[in-house]
């Protein structure tokens, strides 16, 4: 017979950890400074003790937001063929696809290469800026949840690879000139990857729930 001691309240605040991926119960975790705790059964990272990631993430998120406007409105590349030239930005390309009635392709492309990344960056900026400025509002909680849930639907890096493949395909039939939008898109990709990888979500949750419990305990 095994005995598990749990707290009295509904939310268990004692030193019990559950693994996300295999539900293993781990008790009495010694809190260590600046380390990661890994699940012994499946290898999932249970907890990261990494501090001061929020302001770094905010800086990268702001950089990415600045790059966003030129990345989607400036031409990504210019095509020259038989003396005619044509250039396309991300937004005007999506509009053309819509006019040609490729609804699924157009919407899928526009969502995953533009709208979802933009929305995630806005949410991230809102959450990290609020924590930095010590501001609290209920909407911060669902904002950060939404940020996390949309993670796999933002595909900036896949789109970047798509641009490269498209250029190679076109090289045989036309002259290709990279536009300003391409460099802006690359910068957007880099800074948004940095903004999400540098961030420790556990630190954000600790900060958010800490502020929330001042208003109503959970």
């Amino acid at each position: 017979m095994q005995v598990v001691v749990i707290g009295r309240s509904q939310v268990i605040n004692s030193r019990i950890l559950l693994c996300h991926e295999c539900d293993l119960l781990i008790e009495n975790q010694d809190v260590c400074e600046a380390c990661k705790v890994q699940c012994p059964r499946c290898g999932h990272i249970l907890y990261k003790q990494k501090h001061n990631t929020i302001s770094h993430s905010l800086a990268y998120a702001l950089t990415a937001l600045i790059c966003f406007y030129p990345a989607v409105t400036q031409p990504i590349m210019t095509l020259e063929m038989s003396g005619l030239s044509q250039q396309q930005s991300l937004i005007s390309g999506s509009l053309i696809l819509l006019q040609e009635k490729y609804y699924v392709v157009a919407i899928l492309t526009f969502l995953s290469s533009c709208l979802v990344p933009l929305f995630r960056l806005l949410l991230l900026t809102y959450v990290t800026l609020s924590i930095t400025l010590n501001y609290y509002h209920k909407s911060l909680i669902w904002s950060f949840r939404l940020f996390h849930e949309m993670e796999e639907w933002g595909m900036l890096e896949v789109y970047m690879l798509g641009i490269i493949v498209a250029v190679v395909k076109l090289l045989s039939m036309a002259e290709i000139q990279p536009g300003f939008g391409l460099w802006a898109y690359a910068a957007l990709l880099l800074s948004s990857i940095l903004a999400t990888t540098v961030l420790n979500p556990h630190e954000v949750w600790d900060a958010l729930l800490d502020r929330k419990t001042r208003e109503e305990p959970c």
Partner: protein
Amino acid sequence: MASKTITPTLPDKIITGKEAGLVLCTECHKVHRYIPDAEQECKCCGADLHQRKPDSINRTWAFLIASMILYIPANTMMIMNVAYFGADEPSTIMGGVILLLQMGSHAVAFVVFVASVLVPLFKMIGIMLILFSLKYKVNMTDRQRIKMFRFIEFIGRWSMLDIFVISILAALVHITGVAEITAGPAATAFGTVVVLTMLAASSFDTRLLWDYKRKNYKNIELKQEPAAD
């Protein structure tokens, strides 16, 4: 700045949160006492609490089967048409790869082949294998299965590559009479396949991989901490 990774020792007797009557909030990582037969919400962040994702296996099967059906038109129908000086040149997914090979860009041909042929196939077969292995107790270790699943989850989004390439080409190459690239019906089918396989992977609950051999494990007693005062 590499931080140290600590792996606690695996306890002799393994208990899961479900067996201990607990439920983890997958959003904010708080652990709650599970209330059976009730719709429970996380008191901290408001997310729905489930010990296991509801209907996980059925939902995964549904998305998987739908994606397999659409995979057929996605590969047999025309995905892209290149009209070059009036001559049409329609191609399928494999046709596009072969064309790239003929152009001599082997590296790009390989990337496209991996992203749009191998990845969706591997993903669908992999998820099916995991679902079958749960049902028929196929001889695979838990570690192998979780590694496979994590890999499947990671690579899935890259098959969107071909959709992006087509949408860039179709939008950019639009010089009437000289060169015009248009998307075909397979593009819609293939885009839907990618979305469906991503939904299949995200509706699967990895915790089920460990549950199946522990059905009769009830030897746990819950004990409450004495009150603080």
